[in-house]
């Protein structure tokens, strides 16, 4: 990099000559209009909107250049407001508008449209084009995205995102001249898991959010909050928008360390559970119709008697052996809610509420991450890698945004050829051309084929134990002394594959290892960490970054908090040691076999469930308290990266709904417990967390505290133009109600307050003078591409130890997988639409989910006499024996002897996987 001195609009600047002039001008706060350039996808020079006048040295004439395609050179003078440049840019808009339908009043993009912004910015007002507009017919692109091609201005962003960056195959640009058609070949749902980004990438209203259209509101009428996506462990930052007490849509919220500019379709379109019929909106207790306060008083009394003399010495183990309450936490509840429950019931009576197998795996994952020396990589770390190896994770379905991050990395990672040829990082065509010739640097080992395979250099498929053996063989190949007993018995083919993987790994200077708990294999988890340790990395760790995927939004936070196993709670209850059970935001039927859960709920005394949706567990509870949903509650969630992030709601919970920790505080008060009585705001809970658990204290820093003020003001969730404030609830009351109070954050549910840019963790919408679309994000970043001003939000709770301890013992390889003659090994298959609980309450997402099925390799299918689609009766030997009849899906990539079962689907029993599975011929012939 070199810094060169140039002037922009007569003002001298020192700028980075690796960037282009558009990026530089925008980073410095100048307004230059653009369309085809995208901060995450670079420059292509198609729209010609970003023209500026460039003068070289003493040159007085200057030339029109496209700022997005021009590198700064020392002595350049850039004139954005040169009359010829202004005239040129106005002419571009005039042309782009020739066929545009001017249907802003009925367009969902209206009010947040980049074309509107740019048209106003360039000053094009009068229409001179007097000929026919070109018109198109549109296609039905499925439940997520609308299509209105007549609005298209041919900027090619959709094509570039969908095909070049997200790897989609069912989208193209058809035709020529002013009739280029962007879309599918025929009607049908967009196949990519990232199609929703078209909504934000498209600068006009060609692609809009179909779920939003179903209950549409203008951007200026949306009350928004900076939320954290609750639908997987990645913790992507989102902006949730609400109106009339209803959640209306979700948009990306930039975080350069987590999700950058994009979201996956589950994160964007699965918000409907907040509004849906499954919501718990009032206390449910049999048919008695108690009010919330009566119920809390009653439950508190029950709790009080159950706690007995423990009240005297909180936290200490009572000497009297009498039944006591237990608390079951949840990986989808906030750190604060789980901590509040843990305080309420005591450390030894707090159970994490994870399936036992998952508990073991996540516990180990946290231990591995804490031991280091491999740090967990942020998005930026992944983007800087020169090799990525994915072990046992189907990222597209288990952590979709990691899939997109890997794809983006695969396209944008720097290569020797690009350095040699001097191809700028923003030169999208150049980068794309080089990448076509470059060998891939992505290596994958997984049980079965995934969508990422197509951009991988090579994939290895095997049973989970064989993946662990394969990984350990790689460790042995990298460092022959690392293993006392390197795995033997890899067949010749696999040995050659190991050699190819190892050769690539050996050459890597900045490799990243991605693994996780989704395959259910502890040996693979351990082997992945061993591989990361054996690979080089930046000091001080000196080992490769290791990302471990965990399934839910706060799985990692829950494990960091720590607690007992769920099966232990079951054991206590069945032994008669439980009198009251508190379950927060957890459907136990998704965590353990139904028979065990039912037995537990029968034996656990009074079961009080705090949740925002009805589940099988709430149905069996003695009382259900209505919790605020993720869009209504402030809370801290710890992502798989160990990043604590504050989710701040878009909506005030409608009474009597309130955050889980507040219910717990109320219960404690009713039970006259000396716990939680000073918890007035979330910060009080976080203060107590910091006192009790200094290692988790940084979680409080994830966002400014509730009493933070900005010029003595709160930050408003409503834009200045928010309309109907005094009228929108007139059907309930004609009196002008005060806006709901937000005690937990420095944000208000009103239009009044601080109007300048808030701290990064409190950004609830992207809007700036002259910039009303999502492109206004440029104004919130320190420079284009981020980070946000003041740093991207979130605090990492796990950093590699400064002084690495003794390396953990290198795992020994499990025995090679040998398919039994009469049994198969069933492994879990994950589905972006289907495997996650809350997202399946959204009809658009549920509509894309598969029905339960059994996946077999072609060989096994032939062996067991199954035909594609025909039901096959099976017996699963998990924690309990399960008889299932499932239609067969033949999956060519599955290893022989391995069966795949989709997990997490609704109306399907809990599947304890991996487990042995028998094709149940007895019942088949009956």
């Amino acid at each position: 990099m070199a810094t060169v001195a140039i002037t922009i609009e007569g003002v001298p600047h020192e700028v980075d000559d690796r960037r282009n002039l558009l990026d530089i001008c925008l980073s410095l706060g100048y307004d230059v209009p653009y369309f085809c350039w995208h901060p995450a996808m670079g420059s292509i020079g198609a729209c010609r909107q970003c023209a500026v006048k460039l003068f070289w040295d003493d040159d007085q004439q200057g030339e029109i250049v496209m700022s997005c395609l021009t590198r700064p050179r020392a002595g350049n003078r850039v004139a954005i407001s040169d009359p010829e440049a202004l005239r040129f840019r106005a002419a571009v808009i005039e042309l782009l508008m020739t066929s545009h339908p001017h249907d802003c009043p009925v367009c969902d993009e209206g009010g947040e449209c980049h074309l509107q912004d740019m048209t106003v910015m360039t000053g094009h007002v009068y229409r001179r084009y007097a000929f026919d507009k070109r018109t198109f017919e549109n296609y039905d692109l499925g439940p997520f995205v609308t299509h209105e091609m007549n609005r298209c201005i041919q900027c090619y962003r959709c094509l570039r995102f969908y095909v070049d960056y997200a790897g989609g195959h069912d989208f193209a640009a058809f035709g020529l001249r002013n009739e280029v058609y962007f879309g599918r070949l025929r009607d049908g749902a967009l196949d990519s898991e990232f199609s929703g980004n078209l909504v934000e990438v498209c600068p006009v209203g060609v692609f809009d959010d179909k779920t939003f259209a179903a209950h549409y509101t203008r951007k200026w009428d949306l009350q928004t909050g900076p939320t954290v996506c609750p639908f997987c462990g990645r913790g992507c930052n989102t902006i949730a928008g609400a109106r009339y007490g209803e959640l209306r849509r979700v948009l990306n919220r930039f975080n350069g360390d987590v999700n950058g500019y994009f979201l996956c379709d589950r994160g964007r379109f699965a918000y409907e559970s907040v509004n849906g019929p499954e919501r718990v909106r009032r206390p449910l207790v049999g048919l008695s119709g108690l009010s919330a306060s009566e119920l809390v008083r009653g439950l508190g009394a029950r709790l009080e008697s159950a706690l007995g003399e423990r009240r005297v010495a909180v936290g200490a183990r009572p000497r009297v052996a009498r039944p006591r309450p237990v608390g079951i936490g949840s990986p989808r509840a906030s750190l604060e809610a789980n901590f509040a429950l843990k305080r309420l019931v005591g450390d030894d009576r707090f159970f994490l509420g994870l399936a036992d197998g998952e508990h073991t795996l996540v516990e180990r994952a946290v231990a591995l991450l804490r031991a280091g020396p491999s740090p967990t990589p942020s998005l930026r770390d992944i983007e800087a890698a020169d090799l990525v190896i994915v072990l046992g994770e189907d990222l597209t379905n288990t952590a979709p945004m990691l899939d997109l991050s890997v794809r983006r990395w695969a396209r944008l990672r720097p290569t020797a050829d690009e350095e040699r040829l001097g191809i700028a990082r923003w030169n999208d065509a150049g980068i794309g051309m080089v990448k076509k010739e470059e060998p891939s640097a992505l290596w994958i080992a997984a049980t079965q084929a995934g969508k990422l395979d197509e951009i991988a250099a090579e994939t290895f498929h095997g049973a989970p134990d064989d993946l662990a053996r394969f990984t350990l063989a790689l460790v042995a190949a990298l460092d022959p002394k690392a293993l006392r007993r390197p795995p033997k018995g890899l067949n010749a083919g696999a040995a050659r594959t190991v050699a190819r993987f190892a050769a690539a790994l050996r050459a890597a200077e900045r490799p990243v290892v991605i693994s996780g708990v989704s395959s259910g294999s502890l040996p693979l988890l351990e082997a992945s960490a061993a591989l990361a340790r054996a690979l080089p990395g930046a000091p001080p760790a000196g080992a490769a970054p290791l990302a471990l995927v965990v399934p839910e939004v706060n799985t990692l936070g829950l494990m960091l908090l720590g607690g007992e196993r769920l099966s232990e709670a079951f054991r206590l209850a069945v032994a008669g040691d439980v009198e009251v059970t508190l379950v927060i935001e957890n459907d136990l039927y998704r965590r353990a076999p139904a028979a065990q859960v039912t037995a537990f709920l029968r034996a656990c005394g009074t079961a009080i469930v705090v949740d925002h949706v009805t589940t099988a567990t709430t149905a069996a509870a003695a009382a259900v308290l209505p919790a605020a949903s993720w869009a209504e509650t402030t809370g801290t969630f710890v992502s798989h990266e160990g990043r604590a992030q504050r989710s701040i709601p878009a909506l005030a919970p409608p009474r009597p709904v309130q955050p889980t920790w507040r219910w717990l505080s109320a219960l404690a008060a009713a039970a006259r417990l000396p716990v939680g009585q000073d918890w007035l705001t979330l910060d009080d809970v976080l203060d107590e967390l910091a006192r009790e658990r200094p290692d988790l204290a940084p979680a409080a820093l994830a966002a400014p505290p509730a009493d933070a003020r900005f010029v003595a003001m709160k930050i408003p969730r409503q834009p200045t133009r928010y309309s109907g404030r005094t009228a929108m609830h007139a059907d309930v009351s004609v009196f002008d109600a005060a806006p709901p109070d937000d005690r937990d954050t420095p944000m208000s549910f009103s239009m009044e307050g601080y109007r300048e840019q808030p701290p990064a963790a409190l950004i609830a919408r992207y809007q700036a003078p002259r910039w009303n679309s999502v492109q206004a994000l440029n104004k919130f970043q320190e420079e284009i591409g981020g980070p946000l001003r003041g740093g991207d939000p979130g605090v990492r709770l796990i950093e590699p130890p400064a002084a690495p301890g003794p390396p953990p013992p290198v795992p020994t390889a499990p025995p090679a997988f040998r398919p039994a003659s009469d049994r198969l090994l069933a492994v879990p298959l994950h589905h972006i639409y289907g495997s996650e609980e809350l997202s399946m309450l959204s009809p658009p997402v549920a509509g894309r989910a598969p029905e339960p099925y059994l996946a077999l390799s072609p060989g096994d299918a032939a062996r067991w006499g199954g035909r594609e689609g025909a039901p096959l009766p099976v017996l699963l030997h998990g924690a309990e024996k399960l008889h299932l009849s499932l239609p067969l899906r033949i999956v060519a990539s599955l290893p022989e002897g391995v069966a795949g079962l989709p997990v997490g689907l609704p109306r399907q029993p809990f599947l304890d996987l991996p487990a042995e599975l028998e094709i149940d011929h007895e019942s088949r012939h009956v």
Partner: protein
Amino acid sequence: MINNVESLCCVAPIVRLGAERWRSLGLTDEGGTRMYGVSGRARRTGAWELPVGTPMRELIERHAGGMREGFALRAVMPGGASTPLVPADAIDVIMDFDHMKQAGYGLGTGTALLIDDSVCPVGLCLNLVRFFAQESCGWCTPCWAGLPWMVGVLADIEEGRGRPEHLDLLAEQMWFMGEQMCFCDLAPSATKALGTALKLFRGEFERHIEEGRCSYRERGPITGAGSAAGGRPAGSGTATGDRRPGPGPAAGGLPGLAPDRVR
């Protein structure tokens, strides 16, 4: 890699004569020979291999035998649809790359198309711009959005709906399609002939607008080169029943450039 027939034609004589001898065949520094051609209403249309640097006048008057009787040369499109027009009084220009460029024209293919006084310059430009509008790949805005607009404006002028401000609009669009303004050379090339036509034949454009009609169309069909009599037939009326805008095939349309409707 050489994949151009014209270039391949040079290989045999270069091998046969040697590079120096072949180079010395040229009349200017550029050397060698080239395929030159003449089409339009010349006495003998055709293609000739001539020394590079042959003056255009020699090509037209000596090799093509000058204009057919009854037709007067008004301009020459020297090297294809993307070259500026050479006015009839400037055909002494030497036809090599350098001289043509210096004079502001461009040698292009070296196949000159003669524009005579029966050809409507507006219709000619419409036909050319429409061709380029059809060929636009759809990448950059001046080209995909600007060319169809120009087609519309030119069609309006040609069909009698022109307005005085249209000429400024055309000039503006041509500025907008300057070489640095566009991603590739197609749009700048598309307007080269129009740019010179607007200078050479501005009166014709203005007359179209003033009279609200194309006077060339009312002269009726021209029998063309195959006619034994040559020259213009008597009679009047519209050329064909073709309702497409722009000159019909018999009204001086260029071969191979099928007019099509650009919406």
